[in-house]
C-alpha cells in the first residue's frame, strides 16, 4: 500500500510496526521487497513522492569545502526509486581482492569476503535485470561479437560489465510493494530524528514530517537506514539527542572516509592497426541480446606486486575532431591573448593550427553555423581510456553538518572531499602497466596525458557520483560504524544499507553490491525476526 503523509496522515500520528525502512532507493526497495511476504509489518518512509519535485530535491542542498565536487542536489535523486531513477545501469561485482586487507592501503579490508557475498550477488543480478552471474571474459567469447585482446592475464585482464536496461527500482518494483499486504510505503515522509533509548541501547522511535508542517512518530522493532552515502551520516549526526556526537558515532567515524570513483581520461591508445577490432569491448553495437561492455583492468598479481589500487579502463573511440591539436592550440592562443599575454609555445601552437587547419575550420563552422563540413573529422584518431579508479580511504575526506538548516530545521551537509596525491600517482602507474602490456602485445602505444594533469583532476574530472564509506563496516567498533551484519555497533536494532557501509569501494559502480548487501541484510533480518 502507498500512503502520502501530506494527505493521508493526521498530524502527530503515531505508527507502530515491525520494521521501519528509511529511504526507498535501490537498497530500501530491495529490503522491503525481500521481506514483503514474511508477514512482518513494514513501513518504508520516503522523503519524496513518485515524481521529481524541486522543493523535495532541494533538501539535498549542502556545501562543498574540499576538492571541487558536483552540487549535492544534482548527483542524487530524492523520490521513490532514489538515484536508480537516473542511473546508467553499469554493473560489476567488487573483486575478491577488494574485500581483502591490503597492507599497502590503510583502512582497507572488509569483514566479509567476496565468496560470502557471491550468493547474494547471484540474486542481485535479477533485481538489476542482468544475465547470468558471470563476469569472466572467457565465458562471453563466442556469445558476443569480437574477442578479448591477447593480453597476459597475469598483467592486464579483460573484465566484463553487464548493463542493466536500466531497471528503475521505483517503477519496476512499485506494484510489488503496492500489493504487498503488510508493506506501507509512506511518501513525503522525511525522517528528521532517530531517537535512541539509552537504557537499552535501542532506537525507540523516529520522528518524521512533511513540508506542510505536520509531524509524526514511528516506533518499530528494528530500523534500516537506507538514505544514501551522504544522507545516512547526515541523519546519524543529526540524531544527537542522546549522544552529542550523533548516533553510532562514539568513535568519531560517522561521515568519515567519504569516497567516490574519480573518472579521468588520463591516457590514450594509438592502435598499431587502425582497424583494430574492439567490438568485444562494446565499441561496436553488435552485442546481440546482451547489454555488455568490457574494459581493461590490472591483474591481482600486479596490484599486489606494485602496491596499486585498480582502475577500469574502457576504450572510448575519439575522432579527429575531438582529438584535434589544432583546435586545442587555437584555444591556447585565444585564451592567452584574452589574458593579455602570449602563449608559452606560440610558434608551436601556430604550427599546430596551420597543419590542422581543416579541423579549426570545422570547429568554427559547427560553432557559428551549426554545420558539419568535413567527413574526415569523424575518422578515428585514437582511443581514450575514460578511467574509473578506486579512491583509497581517507578519514579526512568526510561529511559533517554545516550551519545552514533546511525547512525541517535539519542542518545541511558540509562535504569535504579529499583526493590524495597517492590516488593520482596510482593512476599514472596503472597506465604504465597498461601501456607496457599493450605495447608488448603489439596492440599499440599508450600516451599518458601528464601535460594535462592539473586539468585532469579539476576541469576535466568526472565523477561516478558514488557516495561511499561514511558508515563503514568493520567487526571492531573502533574502526567501523556497522558490523558485518550492517548493524550499528552501539545500537541493537539499527541497521544501515547502501554504499555508506563499504570500507573500500573498488573501481566499479556500486549498485550491484548495494543490492547484494541489501538482500543479505534482509536475510539477516528474517533470522532476527525468526520469520
Amino acid at each position, binding site marked *: 500500500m502507498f500512503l502520502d503523509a501530506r494527505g493521508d496522515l493526521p498530524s502527530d500520528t503515531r505508527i507502530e510496526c515491525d520494521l521501519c525502512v528509511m529511504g526507498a532507493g535501490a537498497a530500501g526497495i530491495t529490503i522491503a521487497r525481500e521481506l514483503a511476504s514474511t508477514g512482518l509489518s513494514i513501513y518504508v518512509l520516503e522523503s519524496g513522492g513518485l515524481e521529481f519535485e524541486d522543493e523535495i530535491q532541494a533538501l539535498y542542498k549542502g556545501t562543498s569545502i574540499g576538492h571541487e565536487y558536483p552540487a549535492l542536489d544534482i548527483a542524487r535523486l530524492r523520490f521513490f526509486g532514489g538515484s536508480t531513477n537516473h542511473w546508467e545501469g553499469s554493473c560489476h561485482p567488487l573483486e575478491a581482492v577488494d574485500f581483502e586487507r591490503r597492507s599497502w592501503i590503510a583502512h582497507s579490508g572488509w569483514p566479509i569476503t567476496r565468496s560470502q557475498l557471491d550468493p547474494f550477488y547471484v540474486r542481485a543480478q535479477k533485481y538489476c535485470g542482468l544475465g547470468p552471474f558471470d563476469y569472466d571474459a572467457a565465458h562471453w567469447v563466442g556469445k558476443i561479437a569480437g574477442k578479448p585482446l591477447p593480453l597476459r592475464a597475469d598483467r592486464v585482464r579483460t573484465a566484463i560489465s553487464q548493463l542493466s536496461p536500466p531497471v528503475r527500482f521505483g517503477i519496476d518494483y512499485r506494484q510489488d510493494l503496492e500489493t504487498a499486504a503488510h508493506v506501507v510505503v509512506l511518501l513525503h515522509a522525511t525522517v528528521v530524528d532517530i531517537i535512541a533509548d539509552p537504557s537499552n541501547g535501542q532506537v525507540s522511535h523516529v520522528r518524521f514530517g512533511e513540508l506542510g508542517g505536520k509531524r509524526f512518530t514511528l516506533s518499530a522493532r528494528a530500523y534500516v537506514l537506507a538514505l544514501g552515502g551522504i544522507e545516512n551520516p547526515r541523519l546519524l549526526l543529526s540524531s544527537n539527542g542522546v549522544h552529542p556526537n550523533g548516533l553510532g558515532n562514539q568513535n568519531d567515524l560517522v561521515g568519515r572516509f567519504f569516497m567516490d570513483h574519480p573518472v579521468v581520461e588520463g591516457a590514450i591508445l*594509438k592502435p598499431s592497426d587502425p582497424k583494430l577490432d574492439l567490438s568485444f569491448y562494446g565499441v561496436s553495437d553488435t552485442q546481440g541480446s546482451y547489454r555488455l561492455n568490457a574494459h581493461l583492468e590490472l591483474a591481482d598479481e600486479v596490484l599486489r606486486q606494485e602496491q596499486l589500487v585498480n582502475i577500469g579502463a574502457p576504450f572510448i573511440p575519439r575522432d579527429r575532431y575531438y582529438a584535434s*591539436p589544432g583546435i586545442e*592550440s587555437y584555444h591556447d592562443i585565444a585564451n592567452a591573448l584574452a589574458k593579455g599575454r602570449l602563449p608559452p*609555445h606560440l610558434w608551436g601552437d601556430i604550427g599546430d593550427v596551420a597543419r590542422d587547419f581543416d579541423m579549426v575550420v570545422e570547429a568554427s563552422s559547427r560553432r557559428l553555423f551549426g554545420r558539419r563540413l568535413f567527413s574526415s573529422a569523424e575518422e578515428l584518431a585514437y582511443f581514450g581510456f575514460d578511467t574509473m579508479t578506486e579512491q583509497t580511504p581517507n578519514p579526512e575526506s568526510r561529511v559533517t553538518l554545516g550551519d545552514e538548516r533546511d525547512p525541517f530545521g535539519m542542518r545541511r551537509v558540509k562535504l569535504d572531499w579529499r583526493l590524495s596525491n597517492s590516488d593520482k600517482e596510482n593512476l599514472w602507474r596503472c597506465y604504465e602497466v597498461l601501456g*607496457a602490456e599493450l*605495447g608488448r602485445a*603489439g596492440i599499440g602505444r599508450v600516451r*599518458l596525458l601528464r601535460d594535462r594533469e592539473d586539468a585532469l583532476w579539476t576541469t576535466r574530472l568526472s565523477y561516478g557520483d558514488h557516495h561511499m564509506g561514511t558508515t563503514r563496516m568493520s567487526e571492531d567498533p573502533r574502526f567501523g560504524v556497522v558490523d558485518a551484519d550492517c548493524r550499528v555497533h552501539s545500537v541493537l536494532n539499527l541497521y544501515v544499507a547502501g554504499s555508506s557501509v563499504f570500507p573500500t569501494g573498488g573501481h566499479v559502480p556500486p549498485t550491484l553490491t548495494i543490492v547484494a548487501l541489501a538482500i543479505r541484510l534482509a536475510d539477516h533480518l528474517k533470522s532476527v525476526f525468526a520469520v
Partner: protein
Amino acid sequence: MRISKRTFLRSALALLAVPGGTLFGLWATGETSDVAARITDLIGARAGARAIGAAFLARFPTEADQKQLSRRIAQLVRSSGEARLGGEAISSRALQRAVRQAITSDFETGRMIELDGWLLAQTEARICALLVLREHAMRAAPLAA
C-alpha cells in the same frame, strides 16, 4: 624538448599504423654491412621517427653517439633473436623479426621510455635516435656516406 602537439600525434600515427603493427613495417631497400644503416633502413615513417629520435636525444644527450648507440641496439637485437648483425647472413625479414622481439622484450621487462607522454620501448626510441644521428652525420660528411 617539447614536441608540437600535431607533430607528435602524426608521428605516432605514421609510425604505428604501418602494416605489421610496429615501427618497422617496411622492408629494407638494400643490404649493407653497416649496422646503423641496416637497422634504420627498416623504418617506414621517417618524419615521425625523426621527431621521436630528436626528443630522445634531447632527453638523453649522453646517448648522442652513433657508434655507441649502434652497438647498444645491436646488442639488444642480438640478445632477442637469432640475428647476426653486420654480416651478410641475416635477411631483412630476420632483422625485422629480431627488432620486433627486442621491442617486445623491452615492454615485457619494463625497459620503457616516456617521451612527451608516449610509452615507448627503449629499442624503438634508440633506433629513432640512431636515424637522427645518422642523417646528421651524412649531412655533415656527404662524401663519406
